[in-house]
């Protein structure tokens, strides 16, 4: 990035549209560190920065219809009625370069699949050890996509693309190419 600028970062993790404070706290440092190392900004801070640029990242874990029933079904049969539960995530990045600037918005979606009981692994999924590792991978890939799309937007202050992070995510939508598979704990 030829002339990266500082940015104030706001982050929220939501569940079904409502703030999830515990998940926000769990992921906040990961989000901050990843944006810091993306190369898109000279500084990432929770406090106001010179120039007044602000970026808000929100990730919303949507609750699929019937998810509760799937869990009950698997539980009552002690796992014999295996289930594949999908956690869908919608993410949005909003960036304003200054107090009166128009917001630049990028969005993406992702999916975390969880096998409960006896059920075959889904195709094209990357297996992870547990749900925590799964969500961290999902968030890492979401951020790579959001920040890359932002830096490619001509309205973004500096036009050159960001330097890739140390562990880049695929740039195609992850929900169709590389959903995570987290086995039930």
């Amino acid at each position, binding site marked *: 990035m030829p002339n990266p600028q500082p940015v*104030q970062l*706001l*982050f*929220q993790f939501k*569940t*079904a549209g*409502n*703030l*999830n*404070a*515990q998940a*926000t706290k769990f992921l906040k440092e990961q989000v901050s560190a990843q944006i810091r190392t993306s190369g898109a900004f000279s500084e990432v801070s*929770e*406090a*106001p920065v010179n120039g*007044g640029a*602000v970026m*808000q990242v929100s990730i919303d874990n949507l609750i699929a219809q019937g998810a*509760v029933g799937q869990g009950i079904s698997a539980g009552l049969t002690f796992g014999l009625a295996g289930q594949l539960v999908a956690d869908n995530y919608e993410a949005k990045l*909003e960036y*304003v370069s200054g*107090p*009166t600037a128009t*917001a630049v918005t990028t969005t993406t979606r992702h999916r975390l699949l969880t096998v409960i009981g006896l059920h075959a692994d889904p195709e094209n999924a990357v297996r992870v050890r547990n749900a925590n590792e799964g969500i961290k991978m999902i968030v890492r890939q979401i951020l790579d996509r959001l920040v890359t799309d932002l830096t490619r937007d001509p309205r973004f202050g500096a036009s050159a693309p960001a330097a890739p992070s140390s562990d880049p995510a695929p740039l195609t939508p992850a929900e169709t190419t590389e959903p995570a598979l987290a086995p039930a704990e």
Partner: protein
Amino acid sequence: MKRLLTQVALVVTLAVAGCATPAAQLPPTLDTLQAFRTATFPSMSLGTFELAPGLPPGMDRGLMVRAESLRPPNGLSFAQFLKDTMEVEMTAAGRFDPASSVVISGQLTVSEVTTMSTPNGALGARFRVHRNGVEVFNKELVVRDSWEFQFIGAIAIPEAQARYTALYSKLVRSLVNDADFRLAVSP
């Protein structure tokens, strides 16, 4: 029989006492931050936030959502939670200065939530602003929210708690966007 009833009462008491959830601390939001920045706000400080006179003290310390009690995140009071939320938003917007002569104070006037029939919540406060000790603003603001009914408590209770908690950010944003408030605090 009396001993059995005592034991049942003890179990019920312990069960209810165990169902106290602290409300979530709220992070700053882009909407409020931008609302602060698009107007000519000075840096401001925060004064006393307390329950409005005449209201039951318990209203400031907890809120029942079905059988579960929602507590303020700081363990003190919902009025203090409102003050904390204001400080978070003002700090993120660069408008908080504890030494400022423009002081915002507040009295909690409305704090309610229900999960029955048409689930809804409301939060209100009377805000006052003093500039160099002179009152320049005095107004009650109330914000509301409503959502779809859920029968299952495991879904309905967290939903209601989250919706009620989000009203604190909404009330702060309502104040920042209030035309009379903007006029009163403008330098």
